[in-house]
C-alpha cells in the first residue's frame, strides 16, 4: 500500500539516555537523579519460529499489526 505519511515517532524511542533524559526532565524529573543502565540478556527460545509466534499469538500491539495484514 502506498500511503504518503509524515514520519512517526520511533518505535524504540527512549531507549537511549540522550533521548529519554530530556523528556523526563521536561516532565519534571530532576535530571541529576536520573540513572540509565543497559541490561543485556540472552533469551533462549525453543525454536526459531517461537519469537514470531509469540508476537503473533501472545503479543498485544504487534499481534494487532500482524492481524491487520492478515
Amino acid at each position: 500500500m502506498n500511503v504518503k505519511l509524515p514520519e512517526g515517532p520511533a518505535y524504540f524511542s527512549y531507549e537511549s539516555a540522550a533521548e529519554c533524559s530530556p523528556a523526563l526532565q521536561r516532565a519534571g524529573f530532576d535530571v541529576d537523579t536520573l540513572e540509565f543502565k543497559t541490561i543485556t540478556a540472552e533469551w533462549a527460545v525453543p525454536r526459531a519460529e517461537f519469537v514470531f509466534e509469540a508476537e503473533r499469538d501472545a503479543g498485544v500491539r504487534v499481534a494487532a499489526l500482524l492481524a491487520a495484514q492478515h
Partner: protein
Amino acid sequence: MRAATPRPRALAGAAMSSVGLAQRIEWIESGYEYLLAYAAQGRRDEGGSKFGARSGRCSRRSTDSAKKYRKFRRRQPRHGWSRLFRGSWPRRSHCARCDRPDPQPPGDSFAAHRQPQRLGSISSAVLTDLFLIDHGTESGLKAAHLGARSSVIERSGDDGVNRCLQPIRVRWMGARGVRYDAAWSRLTRLFVPPLLDALRLRPGAWLLDVACGPGYLAEAARRRGAMAIGVDFSPTMVAIAARSNPKLQFHTGDRSGTAIREPIVRCGGDELRRLASGRTGACVCRGRTCAATAWPLCLHTVGGPEQSLA
C-alpha cells in the same frame, strides 16, 4: 464488506487518513472480532442487544459473535459506527455467560478507577487507530500499514483518549493474557533482578508495581522482603498475578494522577512514555524512587553458533 457503512464523525481536529474508511473497517473486521463484540456491547447499552447478556470482563466469547453482529448491522443500518461506540461500559460482579466471579477483590482502594467509562464521541476514525493510540508507541511504518497519520498518533496519545479506549485494551488482553504469560515470562523475568537492584529495594520497603502484568516483579520483590502492590489495566493479568501470588495485593486500574503512599514505584515499559510525556510523572513520582524499562532494538539469537544458518 458492507457497502453502505455510514461515514462517522472524525475526532475533533484529527485528520482522516487518505485510506478509505470502508477499507479500514474491513481491516478491523478481519483481525479484531472483539471490536465487533464490543460494538454490540455498546449497542446493547443504548437500548438492548439481540445477542443476550455479556460481561465486559469475561474472556470467553462466542465464536460466531462477529457473524451475529454483521447480521445485526444489516438489519439496522440507521445506526452509524460513531453512535455504536458511544455508551458506558458496565461493571458487573459476575459474567452472565459463564458465571465466573469478578476477579476484582471487593473493597479495594482503586474503586474510583472502576467507574463506568463513557466513550463519549470517540468515532471509528479513532478506533481504527486503536493500536496507534497506545501511548504513541507505534512507528511511522505501522502507521502506514494501518492507514493512519502520525498527527493522529501524537494527538491520540492523550490520556483522556487512552482512558476512553481502556475497555477495548482490556478485552484484547483478556483474550491473550494467559498466552502472554506463557510466551513472554522467560524473557521479561530476565530483567526483574536488575530492575530491583536499580530501585535499591530493601526488606520492608513498599513497592508499587504499575502495569504489573502477571506480577513477576512484585513476586520477586516479596522474595526480597519488600511489600509490593501491583496494578494493571487488564483484569486477566491481575487474575493471573493474584493466582500466582496469593499473598500479594493486585488491583485492576490505573494510578495516573492519584496520590500514592508507596515510596518506590516501578513502571512497566509503556508507562515510561507516560512519565516522559509529563502527564503522569509529576503527580505520581514526585519525591519517590522510580524505575522503568525501555526496550531497545535487540537481536534474538536462536540456538548456538553451530546452529547458525551462516
